[in-house]
């Protein structure tokens, strides 16, 4: 206990009398009770849980930054029962104020005309979108969501450091942090009365529902609840995890810009079953990217015509497009006068002292004290941090910055460097002190706002560091707001996402369908390649002992077939193949682990992973665990020794087990039946194509009976069918019977006939406009393939004349079948996934 008290004495929250406040003391009692060994163990569990849940944060511009694991510090940030009401009132007031400012800026414009808000601050700000002026918005508040970053000074005073009003991020991470904490360290919550986060999310859900346009000229078919979607820029966005997480938690469909289309000035979602109307869009796309027609012309993230749909009152967007205008540190010095003007109130929470250089006196002050201030531009730089710490600049850099400020004074502010207080943090198993920022979340509700009773805390990566951002590698914390009595609203368990909340009758968005289709294809591609690679490696590992001529020939044929099967040319083919044959393990290792080699297992695995991330809201926690293990399996480097050969085989064994587990999980994991069907269609198509390729590369060419026998055995092995074959036929591995087993047997789940049957059943379940009008294009292709197969004469397929170099009938059948089946994906894509690429005319009306 004393140990912790000593540690904490240096931190924040210590009263002037040097005593630890009661709420910290209570926390450290529970903490101490766990004991340091247990804490170390739980800390590992926490990290593992977050990794397994796939909680990530992407870093732009960093090749290794995609899907970086989220870091959570087990020691929360405590806000006492006395402190919170003051903070909350201040936050609610600020939300009301910003809402009125937003309304005024895009409405009457009184603030600028009366001179309270300097016009330079508004007109120079790229977030002021004149296209949005005068657009009436439904709902009582225009600013639906609001976030503020708060800091505590060493004296315990609360300051607002910055405002987020476009598409505030972090609420999903806050929820995930809390969920992880309650699971891993429930003891810490004991006797603490920590307030719950769920009221905020309930208010968010209600608020968005209430935003749905009321006066509908076109009633929603069947009445029904409003359709709400979350618009994400896509899987490489820094907070994509959160978009998918909130989508599952709130039950709103996750969409990208090209999933939506404007028709008749309404917004529609492209689904497998056609277009479905959208009423409310919760957007995570920045203002200017939302509509290429009226805003940023080359944006690929938005929806052309979206602003007109808003203007027509047919769709509501939260936050409204244009709300980024409030993210302007230059406004901070004017908030107090604006609060007086609009609310007749004084600001309850002060803003960090800010000097806007658009005024001569303030500019001179900033220029004189440049090295002691933080300098910001009035517009946020979307590519990274827009804060410059004056103290970190050299003399030359200071002069340069001065010149920039003098050239465009209205674009700069100087901000006081508040001495942010530190908070106890568990860093690498040791308690240290870190500076902390608290992000709060508010959502409009009724006449006012609701603040989350909690939030997201981020701490600096190094003890003294002033700048805190996720981009530069900070660590997050749960924020506990303590209540005098137990929170009665909802039990913490309620805070786990309720998966599959999306309405059952909703059709799958086309974009999600396409990715699930590709997940299916890559699943089988990875599995097929892994099995064949394992078969080849096993043959090499055993065959080395007594190298007969036929063994040598079989080995060569298998290696060539592997190159052809995996499309990893030149590999064991072509003029340079002698070197590869001389040292086959080097090439095999490449085919397994070299991610830069197109066609390699690792390469296909990464494609598989990418497709999975594109639809990340569809997977269960168990699926993430399996994926994580596969990733680790393929991340190791393996030496080219005998030991290494065995390790590669071992890796393949594990990989095959995990992929099979993944397939098994799909059925129950994917939240919607349609999603599973599409995934399985992808699998069946890939399995069919792989089987045809395998047979073509191994069984078509003539060789000695001994070699042909060994190759047939390998084919059966790499389809895990050797045992089944023996059980069924109880005969040596005969050419005719192998083909019968792999092509024609309707009961063998690895035969082509079986795959075609499944495909036909699945495709029938997809939405179909042409029901009753004969066959669809893909049905025709399958029927043709099926007929071709049925009409084939099994004896001819297995027969060959002595003077022929290959099995001609078999070759012909395999080629024709492949031609038919390979055409199916394009047809499916055209019917269900089709996304046109917007093309922008240049209106070069340059004359006279």
């Amino acid at each position: 206990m004393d140990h912790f008290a000593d540690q904490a004495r240096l931190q924040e929250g210590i009263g002037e009398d040097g005593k630890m406040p009661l709420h910290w003391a209570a926390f450290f009692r529970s903490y101490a009770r766990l004991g340091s060994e247990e804490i170390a163990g739980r800390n590992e569990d926490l990290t593992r849980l977050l990794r397994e849940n796939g909680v990530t944060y992407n870093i732009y511009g960093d090749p290794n930054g995609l899907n970086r694991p989220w870091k959570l510090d087990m020691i929360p940030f405590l806000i006492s029962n006395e402190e919170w009401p003051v903070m909350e009132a201040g936050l609610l007031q600020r939300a009301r104020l910003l809402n009125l400012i937003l309304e005024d800026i895009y409405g009457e414009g009184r603030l600028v005309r009366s001179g309270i808000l300097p016009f330079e601050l508004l007109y120079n700000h790229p977030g002021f979108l004149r296209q949005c002026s005068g657009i009436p918005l439904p709902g009582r508040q225009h600013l639906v969501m609001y976030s503020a970053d708060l800091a505590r000074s060493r004296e315990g005073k609360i300051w607002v450091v910055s405002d987020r009003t476009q598409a505030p991020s972090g609420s999903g991470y806050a929820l995930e942090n809390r969920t992880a904490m309650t699971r891993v360290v429930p003891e810490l919550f004991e006797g603490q009365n920590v307030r719950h986060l769920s009221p905020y999310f309930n208010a968010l859900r209600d608020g968005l529902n209430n935003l749905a346009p009321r006066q509908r000229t076109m009633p929603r078919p069947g009445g029904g609840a409003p359709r709400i979607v979350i618009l994400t820029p896509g899987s490489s966005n820094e907070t994509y995890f959160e978009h998918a997480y909130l989508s599952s938690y709130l039950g709103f469909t996750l969409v990208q810009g090209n999933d939506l289309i404007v028709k008749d000035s309404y917004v529609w979602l492209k689904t497998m079953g056609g277009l479905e109307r959208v009423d409310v869009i919760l957007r995570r796309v920045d203002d200017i990217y939302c509509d290429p027609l009226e805003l940023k012309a080359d944006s690929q993230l938005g929806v052309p015509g979206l602003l007109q749909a808003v203007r027509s009152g047919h769709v509501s967007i939260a936050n409204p497009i244009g709300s980024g205008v409030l993210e302007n540190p230059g406004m901070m010095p004017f908030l107090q006068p604006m609060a007086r003007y609009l609310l007749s109130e004084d600001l309850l929470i002060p803003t960090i002292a800010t000097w806007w250089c658009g005024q001569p006196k303030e500019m001179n002050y900033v220029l004189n004290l440049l090295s002691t201030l933080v300098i910001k531009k009035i517009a946020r730089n979307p590519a990274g941090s827009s804060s410059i710490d004056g103290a970190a600049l050299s003399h030359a850099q200071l002069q340069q910055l001065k010149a920039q400020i003098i050239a465009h004074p209205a674009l700069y502010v100087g901000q006081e460097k508040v001495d942010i207080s530190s908070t106890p943090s568990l860093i690498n198993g040791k308690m240290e002190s870190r500076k902390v920022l608290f992000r709060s979340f508010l959502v409009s509700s009724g006449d006012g706002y609701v603040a989350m009773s909690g939030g997201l805390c981020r701490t600096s990566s190094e003890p003294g560091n002033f700048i805190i951002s996720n981009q530069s590698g900070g660590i997050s914390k749960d924020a506990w707001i303590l209540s005098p009595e137990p929170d009665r609203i909802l039990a913490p368990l309620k805070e786990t996402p309720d998966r599959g909340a999306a309405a059952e009758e909703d059709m799958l968005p086309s974009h999600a369908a396409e990715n699930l289709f590709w997940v299916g294809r890559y699943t089988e591609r990875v599995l097929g390649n892994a099995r064949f690679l394992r078969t080849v490696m096993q043959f090499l590992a055993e065959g080395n002992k007594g190298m007969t001529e036929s063994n040598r020939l079989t080995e060569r044929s298998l290696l060539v077939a592997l190159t052809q099967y995996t499309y990893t040319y030149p590999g064991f083919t072509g003029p340079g193949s002698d070197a590869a044959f001389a040292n086959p393990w080097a090439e095999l290792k490449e085919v397994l682990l070299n991610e830069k080699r197109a066609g390699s297992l690792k390469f296909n695995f990464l494609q598989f992973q990418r497709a999975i991330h594109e639809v990340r809201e569809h997977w269960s926690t168990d699926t993430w665990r399996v994926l994580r293990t596969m990733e680790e399996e393929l991340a190791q480097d393996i030496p080219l020794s005998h030991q290494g050969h065995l390790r590669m085989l071992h890796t393949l064994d594990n990989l095959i087990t995990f992929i099979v587990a993944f397939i098994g999980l799909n059925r129950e994991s994917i939240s919607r039946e349609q999603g599973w069907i599409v995934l399985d269609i992808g699998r069946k198509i890939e399995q069919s194509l792989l089987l045809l390729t395998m047979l073509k590369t191994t069984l078509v060419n003539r060789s000695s009976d001994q070699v042909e026998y060994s190759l047939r055995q390998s084919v059966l092995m790499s389809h895990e069918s050797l045992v089944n074959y023996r059980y069924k036929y109880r005969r040596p591995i005969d050419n005719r019977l192998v083909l019968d087993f792999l092509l024609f047997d309707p009961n063998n789940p690895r035969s082509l006939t079986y795959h075609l049957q499944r495909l036909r059943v699945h495709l029938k379940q997809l939405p179909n406009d042409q029901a009753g009008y004969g066959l669809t294009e893909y049905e025709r292709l399958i029927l043709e393939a099926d007929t071709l197969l049925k009409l084939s004469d099994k004896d001819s397929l297995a027969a060959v004349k002595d003077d022929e170099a290959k099995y001609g009938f078999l070759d012909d059948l395999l080629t024709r079948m492949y031609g038919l089946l390979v055409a199916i994906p394009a047809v499916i894509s055209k019917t269900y996934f089709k996304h046109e690429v917007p093309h922008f005319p240049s209106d070069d009306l340059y004359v006279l």
Partner: protein
Amino acid sequence: MKYLISHQTTYTYYEPVSVCYNVLRLVPRNTDRQLCTSVSVTIHPEPDSLQEYEDFFGNKVIYFSIEKEHARLSVKVFSEIEKRAVAAREIGLYGNATIESVKRQLMDNPQEVGDIGQYIFETPMTAWNEEIAAYARASLRPGLPVLEAAGDLMRRIFSDFRFTPGFTAVSTPLETVMRERKGVCQDFAHLAIACCRSVGLPARYVSGYIETLSPPGVEKLIGVDASHAWFSVYIPHLGWVDFDPTNNLLPAEQHITIGWGRDYADIAPMRGVLLSSGTHGLSVAVDVRRVK
């Protein structure tokens, strides 16, 4: 004086287009010098959605979308304009306002600057460098009446720059125009605007038409006219004063205004997004005809 204006835009697509969205700014607005007495807009194929509104600057905007496959899009705008004679301005009283006095008067009047302030700052299309700022200083000298200084700027652009269709595109930066001393009406208007703003004067971009006259005895051909652009400078009490640097003219009877903005991007005649994989061809025919 009355004009009939026909403005026809035709897009020909090499691949069929399934959906297109467009924003038109081709309907002339009313000003103190002109009245738009009638206008008709004909779009083919017929739009599935069409709406009209006034934008932030008060310009008339038409939004339309075509949601069926089409290979060609034609937009015809016919408008009838009555030019009004304007009483002689009280130039004597305010015409001598210098750059400094204009800036001072604006700063002292937040109500006025609240609107005019739009036009003081750099935009991507009117970004200036030191060369442009130096060019501006030669005309917009301290102590000189703004009217005279802006007139001098117009005259210098007219004589220093060569009118060269095809040399620039919408995306050509102003510094290229400045360096090469070539361009078309949009470039000259943007250059003049950048010059004015570089010394702190409010200036805006005007989109419109100009009547071209054929030599006596030769009948004017239909469709040879074009859309035009010029700039306008704000002087308190006097209002906006237009200058045409392409023709070295103070726009009067022969200039017809469509609308204005901070630069071309605010008042582009037609902006569109279409869903297609192919490219397209564009033709524009404008005819400005005096009726009486």
